[in-house]
């Protein structure tokens, strides 16, 4: 399944701004997403922003990346211009409706 644009963008930025290889960058982002309960194929911009703020810095630090918080902040700022595809209906949206029956 194809990854989301937010995922691809963060991976390529990470690859560009650090010494990580493509494989390392993608693997690190996948681990951070898993930690946050998200998936590479469905993560959206606003969710990725939270991951960049709260999860990614410690993952980068654990892999020896210096100034990880600054890098994450810069990627988050650059990500605002990323255009996303229309999202399919999520399980949260479906289950959010299910107790609304009257």
């Amino acid at each position: 399944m194809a990854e989301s644009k937010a995922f691809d963008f963060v991976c390529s930025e990470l690859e560009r701004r650090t010494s990580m290889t493509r494989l390392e960058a993608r693997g690190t982002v996948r681990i951070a997403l898993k930690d946050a309960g998200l998936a590479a194929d469905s993560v959206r911009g606003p969710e990725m922003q939270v991951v960049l703020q709260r999860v990614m810095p410690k993952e980068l630090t654990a892999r020896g990346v210096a100034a990880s918080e600054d890098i994450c902040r810069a990627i988050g700022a650059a990500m605002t211009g990323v255009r996303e595809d229309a999202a399919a209906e999520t399980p949260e949206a479906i289950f959010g409706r299910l107790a609304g029956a009257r």
Partner: protein
Amino acid sequence: MEIAAGLAGLLSVLMSCVVGLRLVLLSRRTRQAPEMLIGLDLILVGAGWNALIAVGRQATGLPDDVRATLVCAGGLCAVAGMACLMVFIWRTFRPERAGALVALALSVAFASLFAAQSFAPGWLAFATDERGPWTNASLFTSFNYAWASFESMRHASMLSRRVRLGLADAVVADRVRLFATLMATGTVASWIFAGFQASGVAVGGTTIGLSLGGTVCLFSVALLWLAFMPPASYLESVRRRALVEA
């Protein structure tokens, strides 16, 4: 024991009907398929299958053709309801080709049991002596529920992590967890029933069958109530717990 199990079963049928009808009515307002699918599943499996098979099997005073028609209608409800559940799981948790194939395979496998029972020895044999391929229905439904459990538990686990980061609503995450528990209950109950049947222990109307069935029914009623008709105090406690854990 019979009266207690009967009351628990009746409560479960009524709860499934009420929640199922509410969801079907909701789908008329929202014009969305998921609520229609899960509502039909509850009506057909939770109410139709259980009630029709119980009456067809236990009401020995009824004419044979009526008993055969009742259990056949119950089987049909089970097949249609399980298909609704499978489509719901596919569309909600795994909306891709692989999910569609699993849903189709499980639905067809279960429907083939119904066809085999209809072909030979027929539904009267099941109504009177619980004979024929349909005796494997519990085993087959356990596969359906196992997939539903796996997908919903996986998602419930992801949502609980999202709640900690403020990325998901604690109430919705709790609803998915309750639904996953309901599916897991169905899986375990089906395995136990199938295990008893495979080892020759009768469960239809026996003390062991009634006590197990009654316990499962009561637990399912509680889960349905909390998931789909939650009282305000319960929702408040879920929100409070999420705040503490965040």
